[in-house]
């Protein structure tokens, strides 16, 4: 990691921590989230089976790579995204086209229950790459390098600095391991061009080229 990358990574971590801290203060959230009432949990399970899984797959293991897998995703992240859809502040194309509607009438309790449900499912690992794509060994290697070491030339910090070495996510950063590559690329493009606003990732994705985005995406998809 060069100095520029180090500064960016530190700034990113600091910014996220600051945002989380302020959010925590605002919501008076403790480290351990409140348990989900049984009725809400049952509602969430039924909602997933009768609606969410049409796109996101049974138990959040999505079939089509257009839609992200949600199984094993961090609960806080699912909550944050559903709230952003509801508030129409996350505005990438499919968020607008589908999720703004889907989340429009969800209550905070329902959002929490859905997030809890998905976070407790067996983590998803895409099995599509070997079956349907030509071998991407070189691309995966390039992606691995970007993920672990960043792109020194353009000052892109290592992804692993925040998303963890195995991309399993944390209390502040979403899980990425095993996610569909095409979904990840689509999000990186949206973060790059600003249709999805996320102040830290907008800055990190800005210097990324599309081939770099694709490389890091197929690397993440290949993680098992």
């Amino acid at each position: 990691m060069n100095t520029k990358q180090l500064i960016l990574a530190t700034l990113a971590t600091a910014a996220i921590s600051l945002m989380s801290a302020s959010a925590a203060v605002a919501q008076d959230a403790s480290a351990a989230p409140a348990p989900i009432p049984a009725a809400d949990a049952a509602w969430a399970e039924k909602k997933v089976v009768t609606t969410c899984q049409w796109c996101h797959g049974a138990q959040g293991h999505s079939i089509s790579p257009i839609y992200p897998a949600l199984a094993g995703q961090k609960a806080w992240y699912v909550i944050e995204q559903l709230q952003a859809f509801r508030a129409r502040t996350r505005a990438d194309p499919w968020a607008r086209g589908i999720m703004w509607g889907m989340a429009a009438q969800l209550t905070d309790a329902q959002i929490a229950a859905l997030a809890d449900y998905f976070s407790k499912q067996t983590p998803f690992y895409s099995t599509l790459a070997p079956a349907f794509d030509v071998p991407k060994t070189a691309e995966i290697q390039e992606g691995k390098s970007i993920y672990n070491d960043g792109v020194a030339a353009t000052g892109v910090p290592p992804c692993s600095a925040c998303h963890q070495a195995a991309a399993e996510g944390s209390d502040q950063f979403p899980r990425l391991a095993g996610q569909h590559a095409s979904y990840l690329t689509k999000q990186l493009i949206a973060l790059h061009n600003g249709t999805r606003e996320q102040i830290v990732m907008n800055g990190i994705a800005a210097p990324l080229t599309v081939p770099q985005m694709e490389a890091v995406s197929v690397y993440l998809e290949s993680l098992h």
Partner: protein
Amino acid sequence: MAKFNWLRINAWCGRGSVLAAVLLLGVVASRPAGALPLFARQTGAACAACHTFYPELTHFGRMFKLNGYQLDNGRDIEMITDEGKSVLGLPAVPNLALFIMADYVSFKKAVPDSQTPGANSLRDNIDFPYQVSLLYGGKIAPHFGAFAQVTYSNGADTFNIDNTDFRFANTIVLPNKQPLVYGVSINNNPSVEDPYNTTPAFGFPYLPPATFIPSLAAPIVEAGQAYEAAGPIAYILWNEQLYLAAGFYREARTGSSSPGNPLTGNFGPIDSTTGAVLAGNNAYWRLSYEYDIDRYALMVGTYGLKFKLYPGNGLPLSGATDNYTDVAEDFQFQFIGEHNTATLKGTYVKENQSLNASSAPSVGAASPHDWLSYATVDLTYWWERRLGFDVGFVNIHGSTDPVLYPSAPTQCIAGSGGTCGANLGTPGVGGVYNVGVTNSANSNPTTDAAIGEISYAPWLNVKFTLQYTHYTKFNGATTNYDGNHRNASDNDTTFLYLWYAM
């Protein structure tokens, strides 16, 4: 929405009710299309969630339909009992939508004038509007949903009930966490309940030109009794994959002409003045299996019906019936990518006819057993849901029957070139018609067509389509099919239309 209408001019028409056939043609030919901004209003999701492009459904769209149009992301007007039981869950904003279509149609060769021998009708025409549809639907109450369409068509200059589907649906979560949807659809057109675009109600070709020359025959499942029948179809959907539907249809008209029944002076009950009346309960069934992997959805299925019809049209609605058994196999292979969608689909229908009524010498002496087959396959491609291409083929084959498919018109005018015999110059009810254009010189219904479409959609709810239909065979022959020097390709049709959905 309308099937491209290979209008079935059947036994009852063969018996001489050409006027009825022409009227029917006007009505049925102008069936509309239906993608529904009203569902977008209810779900908050853009068209692209449910459709690759209207009317073809995605997996999400299929689930939405089979779950009874229930997904509701708007505010409801609600009421509960003291015990907390919901008694009203009505969408606060009525789920309405409007379709408007305008078109331009041109035949390769003009059709003869219907009144003046030797003269021709206009080769092209404009319909403005072609159709205007008012649609209402979506969630009516928890578990109850609807899709209802009323359409004004320029050709008939009337409002008509279009595809209409009232549904109940519910989902059981099985112990293994798989969903089992069960429901009932009460509808007015066999296959309206179906979620795939291979079955007749929402199948290719999607929209007929406003003006077209109908071929002689198509299996009855291909809209033969559309909007004239009604019935309950029960279904289950297991794990978003296995779909089974079965039910029956009954006659659902109240009289063929105003004021309906001459005795009551009011609509219905229908009697022998109506033609082609369904007898009793008539079975319809459907079985399909969908497999989804990556961006692909593959479906294989089968469907069919067994319909019994009284010929009517002067014959009492009792005794022998004409029996039609349709068995179809269909497939749909759908690819939905981020920027492109492509769908290959096809269906093959085989119809066996036991014409117990129409084969009687006193009725018309059609062959006691006839058959028809109907095959269609098409490939659709959309780029960015903005530029669309569709190419497909429709092949109708069938047995030769001089009574069902008369080689000469049953009414003639002098000098028209047809073989009029005793009918020469006979004034028919409603006048004369295009001699030969809809007839088959060899009494065979074989019609083969290729259809190509290019569409441009500047917005998801605004579409311009240019469609060209080329016939290699029409009513039994490639050349001189009507015995009056008209070739199949003379019926080639250019159809340009504009579709607004709001």
